[in-house]
């Protein structure tokens, strides 16, 4: 174990274990104390979703590095399917709740959560457990079920995707936190952070008809999320993105956090056991210089809990 890693882990673990181990304190501490290193990417494993995120965000300097007082935040998990959390079709509700609390502790005025779901939207919101988690955490759950919520934007750098209808919250929020769940995907090989952005647009059919992988990469050229948190706690290994039963799911207890969406996807692909070179949209995004695929060029904080 590297020395600085040891120090960070020791400090964070001590705080978590401590009597005053509330998140608020953790955030205060993390933002007040000097951060020994600016990490490009944090990989965490072997903890519960909330704890893993606490550790990851602390090592990145706390949520206040990303969320300033009074800012409006939108959190975009995957809520695509009418399946319960153990099916791993949607982002872990506990993780979503923890992210919201960090945002509110950092002084966010509002934290909104939505997805343009595939299954019937209010069943997805309800049965994923995310609606309740969001409300309990103090966030606001917002529908994304009709075209009326979406506005057309131009994508000048897009090769195939020249414009898209984007949910108004993405346009009006100061901070955009992308929280996909890592899973197998029948169309895109894997569902990762870039793929998760298909849930902020209205006409996904266009993407499917016009070179899906290119469109996924093109959209990233329009706007990158402030932060990407890839939930690899429960991972659907096959039959994705919806899954057929819990037999498709493995509990991996992993998490990737990075502001670089391409790097995050590359790392998550490796965790899944696939080769990033086989995931075409990652390769295209790397080539379009939307992020870094060469993980050895990044400063990666590896945390085991």
């Amino acid at each position, binding site marked *: 174990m590297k020395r600085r890693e040891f120090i960070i882990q020791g400090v964070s673990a001590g705080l978590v274990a401590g009597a005053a181990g509330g998140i608020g304190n953790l955030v205060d501490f993390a933002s007040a104390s000097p951060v020994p290193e600016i990490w490009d990417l944090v*990989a965490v*494993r072997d903890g519960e979703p909330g704890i893993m995120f606490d550790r990851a965000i602390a090592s990145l300097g706390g949520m206040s590095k990303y969320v300033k007082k009074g800012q409006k935040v939108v959190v975009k998990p995957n809520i695509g399917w*009418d399946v319960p959390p153990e099916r791993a079709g949607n982002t872990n509700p506990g993780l979503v709740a923890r992210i919201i609390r960090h945002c509110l502790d950092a002084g966010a005025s*509002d934290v*909104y959560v939505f997805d343009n779901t*595939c*299954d*019937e*939207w*209010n*069943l997805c919101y309800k*049965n994923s457990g995310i609606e309740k988690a969001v409300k309990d955490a103090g966030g*606001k*759950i*917002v*529908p994304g*079920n*009709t*075209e*009326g*919520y979406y506005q057309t934007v131009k994508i000048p750098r897009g090769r195939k995707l020249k414009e898209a209808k984007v949910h*108004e919250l993405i346009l009006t929020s100061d901070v955009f936190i992308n929280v996909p769940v890592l899973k197998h*995907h*029948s*169309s*895109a090989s894997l569902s990762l952070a870039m793929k998760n952005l298909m849930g902020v647009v209205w006409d*996904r*059919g*266009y993407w*499917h*008809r*016009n*070179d*899906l*992988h*290119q469109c996924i990469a093109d959209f990233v050229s329009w706007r990158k999320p402030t932060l990407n948190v890839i939930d690899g706690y429960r991972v659907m*290994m*096959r*039959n994705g*993105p*919806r899954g*057929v*039963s819990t*037999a*498709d799911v*493995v509990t*991996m207890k992993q998490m990737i956090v990075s502001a670089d969406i391409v790097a995050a996807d590359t*790392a998550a692909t*490796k*965790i899944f*056991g696939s080769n990033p070179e*086989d995931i*075409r949209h990652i390769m295209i995004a790397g080539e379009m210089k939307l992020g870094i695929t060469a*993980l*050895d060029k990044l400063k*990666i904080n*590896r945390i*085991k809990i």
Partner: protein
Amino acid sequence: MHKFSWLRLIRIGISVIILILTGMLFIVPANSMPSGFINTITWLQFAPSLLKFFIAAGLASAGFLLVIILTFLSGRIYCAGICPLGTIQDIFTWIHRRFFRAKPLKYAGATNYLRYTLLAFVLLSFFAGTTLLISLLDPYSNFGRIMSNLIRPLTFAGNNAISDILENFDLYLLAKSDYKGFFIMPFALSAAFLFVLGWLSWHRGRLFCNSVCPVGTVLGIISKVSYFRITLDRESCNSCGHCSSVCKAQCIDVKNREVDLSRCVACFNCLDVCPADGVSFKPVVLSKKIKPEAGSEGNAHRRKILKAVLLFSAFITSRALATRVTGGEKPTTIADTKKLVPSPPGSVSQDDFNRLCTSCHLCVSVCPTQVLQPSFLQYGLHGLMQPFMDNHSGFCNFECSLCGQVCPTGAIRPLSPERKKITQIGIARFIKENCVVYTDNTDCGACSEHCPTKAVNMILYKGKLTIPEIDDKICIGCGACEYACPTKPYRAIYVEGNEIHLIAEKPVEKELKPIETNQDFPF
């Protein structure tokens, strides 16, 4: 204040409550109402309950029996306050009278030929295997269609307008919803019916109930022998006609001081207006006077006719009138034309469904994905306006079986969640030549993404490209693939309906290969 005024007030109260509750079922999102609540409200609706009794006799389908008992007891209470379509007509009549100074109604003779012939046709056609006439004439079903096809779109619009206003203040309390799959013919037919009904009730009160409505005719026959009945007191009545002028059913013959009980809809308006207190609602006096009056011979005659009708219908095969207008033809191009549209899960087979559904569109109204849409001729003429699975509007949610839980006629039977997930209402068909993977050589897989059983699976095609393959055995025909398929105008994958619903196999759950438990990071 007359002795019996309270009866009229109670009738008005009950009818308004039932109208509002029943109307609500069709416009309030179903998720907010437990299905038990919905079933309770529709329980007393005569035609659906009777149909349900045929396939599942029990307390849940015994509502019509209570209506019959009520009718024996005190006349057409159903028509007075339980039938929502009756109340709508009363509203038209009331508006005409209250705001447009309608001329008082006068006694009119019964349209016996019309009403008994229609009833005979309804019975005949039902036993011949089609609910078309019941569907067209049943008051509850007509009410349902008016709510579902005319009022529901308006509530969507209203909801979205309010939602838009709130959104400007960053409030997302009210979700917008799109009204999907607007079909012109069911809309037009409902509108036409409402127009005719409105016109009739505007000018002639309850003429529809007394000359067209089969439920009214049946209950009219029973109410002739009801225990409590409207009676004109022969001594105090001076034939002034006050009662007759407020009678919506035009059934009080003041000249002869008689009430046509078969047409009296028990509205009790007449009880309230008699200056001599000569109209009363009281138990029949079983004396010589009433018993052997004219008409008993006619009754016997009518009974004979009814018997003949029933016997005749037994000779008609179930499909005699069931001609499928759209059935049979094979698609010759790569159009995604269906030979058979899928009927909702729980409807057992197309024939069962066609034979029991009265097109009240309650399922259409409660369906959370709006995959259920009113048909026009998709099932053929005999299934006019019966709901079908329209996979261009939505797809059947894997976990949902709401339609079967709310169906008042039993045309869609309730399915347990486990049963629903293996009920095969149709099978997906793939048209490779329409598929993006084939035409563009790019990844798509939208169909497979949405498939809840992975009956639509992506298999290697060219290099790393994958293309859909369908496993008929585990496909349940939910239509998620068809809905998601992005090709236009014809989809590359569509669901062909099963004539008889089948049980699909459950997807095989293979063990996952154990994941390498490497305690380190792969980077």
